[in-house]
């Protein structure tokens, strides 16, 4: 029983983290119509910067959590203003190529700056160790924190998109860019903001994930594939879809890791292939028609 | 009475809560020219999208020469003899004018499945392409890049590509939009001669009333996605509903 409970909690853990990453990917797609291939690298950069803030600059976890994602967001603004802005009007493949180039650069830059070894970050003191849950399960405190933070982020993002003016602007810009421009919404600025926000979310996920997993130069690759699968299963551009996809993937990892360890690796891909066969736009998707 | 080439029953399309098109029912006889008029937003393009397979209707049926084509994908409907032009030019801008038509002819003839021939040496297709360009009076543009020709000529090229697939039913979406009076006259004369040849049935959406009354056997008036009137030009001119809703707004 505790095995299943642990597996489920793991699923929630992984799932909510993936959700935060996938949402960032989704909103960038919503407004720019592109997939940011460097999204996973931004997540990784967030983790590494968080590590440096904590281990080299001596910042406490909470400060690193505030600072590192902002730095990554600033980088994203630079990328948008310096690169993406120029090829925006061209065919989509050019933007995709640029984000791919960014991925190459970031991946290598991380390797150059921090080396190829694995780094470890300790959770902040109050969140270290395990706690005994009702039912007798021993579960890491930090993982529970991640779940809580994920739920909080979920609520906050939902409020942002559905209840705030900024959220409405983002949704409007994604539905009809020309119309939004007519309404004097500065779409260029919205685009930069959204791109930066997406990067911020990714980096935030990175800092949060850092104490849970080892920080290594391959973590960006892993997470980007995972978030692609999440987004395909849930549907590109769909907020509830991202949640559904993330939970599905979380379950596959959590339960699959426990009960089907051999196929665990290809399980998400099989899931994705099934969705593509049966509901190509994702379980809740609206966009993506060929 | 021969079978109508197009039978439309209760055709409708909803987007969420909005009905872009609703309750369209009519029959189109072979070789007739039906003009579709209505203000912007009346649902004319959506109507075309439903007929040509670009969108799936939420209600109703479309029957082409006795065959139910409701909800079929565009390439299937095209194969069954329906061809359409678009409001915004939908041609291959990087290819030459003649190549544009060659693409359509290649697709029609099944040549598209040949992997080892030399497309640039496909004489039959090239000759037929040139003949079609001749018919539309743009033969001298054959080797110009399609993206560089004038707007009016692009629209003529679009019609050439549309006709290249040898359709029975041709849907023209505002063929004279943005044309000079001279070009409009040319295109109108062209469509009239094509219609007179008896090879095609035309559906034409238009804003230019002169063109409409010049070409149409019958007129369908659409308003807010619905069918407001259907009849000969005289009947439509006299229809009080139409006068109230549309002709008054137009001029």
């Amino acid at each position, binding site marked *: 029983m505790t095995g299943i409970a642990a597996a489920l909690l793991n699923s929630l853990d992984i799932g909510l983290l993936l959700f935060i990453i996938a949402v960032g990917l989704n909103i960038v797609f919503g407004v720019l119509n592109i997939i940011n291939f460097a999204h996973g690298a931004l997540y990784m950069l967030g983790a590494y910067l968080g590590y440096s803030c904590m281990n080299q600059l001596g910042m406490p976890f909470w400060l690193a959590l505030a600072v590192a994602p902002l730095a990554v967001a600033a980088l994203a603004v630079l990328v948008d203003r310096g690169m993406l802005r120029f090829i925006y009007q061209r065919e989509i493949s*050019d933007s995709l190529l640029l984000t*791919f*180039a960014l991925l190459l650069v970031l991946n290598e830059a991380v390797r150059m700056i921090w080396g190829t070894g694995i780094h470890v970050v300790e959770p902040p003191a109050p969140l270290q160790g395990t706690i005994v849950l009702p039912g007798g399960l021993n579960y890491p405190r930090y993982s529970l924190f991640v779940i809580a933070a994920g739920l909080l982020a979920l609520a906050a993002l939902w409020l942002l998109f559905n209840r705030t003016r900024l959220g409405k602007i983002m949704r409007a810009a994604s539905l009809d860019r020309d119309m939004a421009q007519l309404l004097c919404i500065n779409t260029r600025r919205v685009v930069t903001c959204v791109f930066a926000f997406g990067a911020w979310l990714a980096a935030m996920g990175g800092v949060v994930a850092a104490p849970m997993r080892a920080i290594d130069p391959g973590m960006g690759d892993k997470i980007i594939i995972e978030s692609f699968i999440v987004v395909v299963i849930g549907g590109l551009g769909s907020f509830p879809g991202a949640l559904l996809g993330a939970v599905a993937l979380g379950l596959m990892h959590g339960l699959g890791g426990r009960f089907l360890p051999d196929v665990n690796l290809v399980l998400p891909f099989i899931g994705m292939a099934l969705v593509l066969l049966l509901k190509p736009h994702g379980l809740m998707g609206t966009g993506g028609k060929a | 009475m021969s079978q109508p080439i197009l039978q439309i029953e209760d055709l409708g399309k909803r987007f969420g809560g909005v009905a872009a098109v609703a309750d369209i029912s009519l029959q189109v006889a072979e070789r007739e020219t039906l003009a579709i008029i209505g203000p912007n937003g009346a649902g004319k393009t959506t109507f075309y999208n439903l007929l040509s397979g670009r969108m799936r209707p939420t209600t109703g049926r479309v029957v082409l020469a006795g065959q139910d084509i409701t909800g079929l994908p*565009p390439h299937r409907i095209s194969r069954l003899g329906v061809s359409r032009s678009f409001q915004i030019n939908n041609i291959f801008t990087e290819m030459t004018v003649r190549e544009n038509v060659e693409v359509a002819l290649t697709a029609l003839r099944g040549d598209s499945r*040949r992997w080892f021939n030399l497309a640039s040496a496909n004489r039959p297709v090239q000759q037929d392409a040139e003949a079609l360009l001749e018919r539309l009076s743009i033969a001298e543009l054959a080797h110009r890049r399609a993206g560089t020709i004038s707007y009016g000529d692009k629209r003529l090229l679009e019609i050439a590509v549309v006709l290249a697939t040898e359709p029975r039913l041709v849907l023209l979406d505002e063929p004279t939009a943005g044309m000079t009076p001279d070009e409009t006259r040319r295109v109108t004369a062209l469509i009239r001669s094509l219609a007179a040849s008896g090879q095609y049935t035309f559906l034409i959406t238009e804003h230019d009333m002169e063109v409409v009354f010049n070409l149409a056997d019958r007129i369908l008036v659409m308003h807010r996605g619905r069918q407001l009137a259907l009849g000969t030009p005289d009947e439509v001119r006299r229809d009080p509903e139409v006068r109230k809703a549309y002709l008054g707004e137009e001029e």
Partner: protein
Amino acid sequence: MNSKTYGAVALALVAAGLVALPWIAPYFYIFIATEVLILGLFAASFNLIFGYTGMLSFGHAAFFGAGAYATAMLLLWLEWPLLGCLVVATAAGALLALVIGFFSVRLNEVYFSMLTLAFGMMAYSVVHQWRSVTNGSDGISGFSVLGLGLGIDIPLGDPSVYYHVVLACVALAAAVLYRICRSSFGLMLRAIRQNAERVAFCGLDVRRYRLAAFTVAGAFAGLAGGLIAPFLRIASPEMMHWSMSAEPVLMSILGGTGYFLGPFLGAAVFVLLETWITSITQAWMLVLGIVLALMVMFFRHGVLGALLDRRRESK
């Protein structure tokens, strides 16, 4: 002399130079040239789907790796002649492309790029983990190329002999690929890139054509992979990694995606650039990324585009 004659003469000179290479250039260049030819074919196969059909795939290395592994396994376990291995390598690339393509071409270009990356990395992961069959992260090595097949007895272990075999294979493959590009089928692919919707309205099932192009491209990539395994004497998972998929992308853009020979030229520039850069720094991927970004932003039509487009405009 008009431009067509210029082109033909230039091509003839290059061809002659390639054939005579082992006798006119230092030993080192035989290896460079072999690599350029193989990667050029790899890039040209990618350009069939990108430059011609307009689909941006970030997982093309999966088919390259499939060909490499097929060849390595056949050489190691069954000691087949090289030509037989190459046939299987081509088939392996085609088959994998058919499967991956089936899922990937169903939706729009953004999905396509995402999915090809994801499936490519899936192939990488499978090969990386499946120790029992693929030897995992160590890759398959320790095989040797004994015979060519068809009764032709030549010492394939000699680099200049292998170079000539590669030259012959790549030249033949390129000729076939060129023929396909210039066929009516190729015309359809180019039309699909420019206006897929219009092609659908001309009566073609666009998805099927995209899948066909993808499969053919996979076949040629598999062939290239089949040629590289004996050259490097190994088939390793890295050959399927997305960083390997990035290479044909950059090569095609470097040379010019609008020209058949663009990818080959791009491969030459790429390999020479790589040889030079890696002698200076370890951060080759970084330079690759920067070059790609610069090319996309400022020289989108590549070297050939920059040279030839200007000629065309002035006509």
